[in-house]
């Protein structure tokens, strides 16, 4: 079991959340070429180490947030941007 520290609800079982994977930067739609779009859609760093990732607290506060997790030890640490872009007040 993985305990995910939700910034609102505190530690919760990963099964209560939805995992959205590696946090990626969306290219600018007005200037991105198909290559950049598809890299954004599909290519991932998939590191064995610290990874910035997005979770959705589906059975709690229902907010998206960003955390850093070590993919070998599964430790969490706070990301500088705890909530997804555009949602932070």
């Amino acid at each position, binding site marked *: *079991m993985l305990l995910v520290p939700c910034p609102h609800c505190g530690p919760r079982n990963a099964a209560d959340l939805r*995992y959205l994977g590696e946090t990626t930067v969306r290219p600018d739609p007005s200037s991105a070429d198909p290559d950049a779009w598809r890299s954004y*859609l599909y290519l*991932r760093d998939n*590191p064995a180490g610290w990874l910035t990732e997005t979770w959705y607290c589906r059975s709690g506060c229902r907010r998206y947030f960003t955390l850093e997790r070590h993919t*070998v030890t*599964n430790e969490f640490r706070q990301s500088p941007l705890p909530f997804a872009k555009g949602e932070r007040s």
Partner: protein
Amino acid sequence: MTTMRMLTTGIRRRSAVSGSARYSAAGLIKRGITGESWPRAWRDHELKSSYDVVIIGAGVHGLAAAYYLAANHGITNVAVLDKGYVGGGGSGRNTAIVRSNYLTPEGVAFYDRSLTLYNTMAGDLNINVMFSERGHLTLAHTDSALRTMRWRAEVNKLQGIDSNVIGPDEIKALTPSLDTSANTRYPILGALYHPPGGTIRHDAVNWGYARAANALGVQIHQNTEVTDIVVVGGERESGRGGGGRVTGVRTTRGDIATPIVLNATAGWASLIAAMAGVRLPITTHPLQAAVTEPVKVFLPTVVVSGSLHVYVSQTDRGELVFGASVDPFATYDMRGSLDFTEELAGHVLELMPGISKMRLLRQWAGLCDMTPDYSPVMGFTPVEGFLSDVGWGTYGFKAGPVSGEQMAECIATGRTPKLIAPFALERFTAGQLVGEKGAAAVGH
């Protein structure tokens, strides 16, 4: 017919393992009487400073590629490197199920070739791989699942694969321990029945390829971790990435010069590719499996349920082997979880209430490199001399022989064989994904 095929393949392959090292009934009797031990299946070698081809990963894919390079193309100056031991990754952690009833024509053609190679493997490699062609049932619990089964059956039949949809009565007749009544939470409405599917002993497959490849001159280096791939002339500042060319690898046992590196790893594919400056469309998830205590044989087929996220088969020793879908988040951690055990037990008992008193013996996990379309990434990459045979998700073992054969052809001829062309890395930039989620994943 079978004897003829054994004879001809025996002649074709007789150079692979010969003399007293050959496994045979006569040898078994002789050694039983004299107490003489068998020779080592493969030898250890000193690491040379250069090879024609370096293959990273001594699992079924890497070893099969090495074997077919030597057997089909005469390229024997080959090293297979592994940071652990032969078959210690996904090749020894899977649930040993083989089948070819996929959804896309590309997938069906590919996996069917693999089944053909598995069929003649015992003769080709001179090792008992214990292939049990026991039939494979994919259960449907919903109308939409049944529709997918019919779709798959028609795609399969069109390509000459033995595959058809059967109803609950026929399922009950084939596998009486399944609860086919309408009174369950997820009633069994039908199943896709695939008689050529079955199980095979995965360790014997790994050892067979290692032994046969080594007999042909391929060197297998265990406990040899690749720490870097040397690329020159790439478009990035580091000299890696597109446009570059591989000149060698660095390992924990010394540097090796080589023009060709094949990435045949699972779990660490992204990390190896990153050494050459190649980004892959892969995230790594663990998949857990479990095995029960042994009981008398009662389960004659392989049973899979996509809706219940479980697949079950019984080994020759009588243990039930269970597998599930991948864990829902990416990690390189292979610890088991209680969530998995609870969910598994609940779902298996939904299918077979009669086994509620059985105890689990152990559980384990293996790493799966998941791609967005549930198809692998095979062939050339933007870096010259760096090839990949990765992204095998949860279905890599059953594709081992054909992947090895096709990758060997790819390396030897410098061209992408037709069978693996749909699985090239470029499909992601070209937008030509090969969607196999409906037939490759258990959790769909």
